[in-house]
């Protein structure tokens, strides 16, 4: 067992534990904070996978924007979100747990049949600049410029949509 494998296992256990806590904790602010920990764990996985840009973007977008927006929403709606004594899980949580476990077993079974299941990565040459590659791929017409533009239109639509939906017309 090498050092990087130990790191992987520690991060995986912490991330999965935090993910599990974020879906079963009763206090929703705690759930959002556990989510932050899980997102940080995923960011560390991106670092292990040599995707440093994605790791930092993960922290900026998920923690800096999404998680904080969620905490904000939970605080704004906290009369019903925090402090209610009854469970935060609905009546069907048993079925949900069964489906989740079955899906996990199915996925692992399906993946273990794939013949590339145990491949390891080739050494990456230190001179490959993945950030430059990513930047060029996002704007070059022969690569991914259309998805990139569609994503930007989606973001614009979401921006306008969020403002329209949350507009308080009474004032």
């Amino acid at each position: 067992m090498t050092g990087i494998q130990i790191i992987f296992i520690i991060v995986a256990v912490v991330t999965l534990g935090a993910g599990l806590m974020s879906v079963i904790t009763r206090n929703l602010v705690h759930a959002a904070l556990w989510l932050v920990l899980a997102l940080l764990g995923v960011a560390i996985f991106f670092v292990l996978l040599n995707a440093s840009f994605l790791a930092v973007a993960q922290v900026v977008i998920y923690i800096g924007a999404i998680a904080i927006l969620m905490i904000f929403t939970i605080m704004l709606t906290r009369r019903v979100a925090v402090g209610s004594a009854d469970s935060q899980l609905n009546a069907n949580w048993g079925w949900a747990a069964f489906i989740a476990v079955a899906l996990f077993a199915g996925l692992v079974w399906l993946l273990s049949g794939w013949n590339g299941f145990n491949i390891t990565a080739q050494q990456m040459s230190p001179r490959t600049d993945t950030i430059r590659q990513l930047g060029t791929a996002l704007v070059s017409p022969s690569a991914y410029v259309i998805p990139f533009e569609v994503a930007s239109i989606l973001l614009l639509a979401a921006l306008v949509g969020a403002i329209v939906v949350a507009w308080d017309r009474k004032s």
Partner: protein
Amino acid sequence: MIPISWYLVFSAALFTIGLFGVLARKNAVAILIGVELMLNAANVNLVAFWRYVTPDAIGGQVFAVIVFAVAAAEVAVGLALIISIYRRRNTIVAEEIDMLKY
């Protein structure tokens, strides 16, 4: 070195945890938390396949970036909807928001 199977099993576990959150939670914000976990699991898979199978084509990272954009859009609109519903109906429990049934 870490075989790709570790990443795949990890992301499968994270995905199912997120799925459990989506299916079992009452609160709309908590359901969104589950959705975020699922999207992250998908991202780990995309990047892992990029790194292990096609390290020369950057496609996996591009898709992960687009997933980021989609997640941000989804959360912005979703939370705006939740705030709007909270203002009108004073609840964000998903089971009680069932006006479309009638």
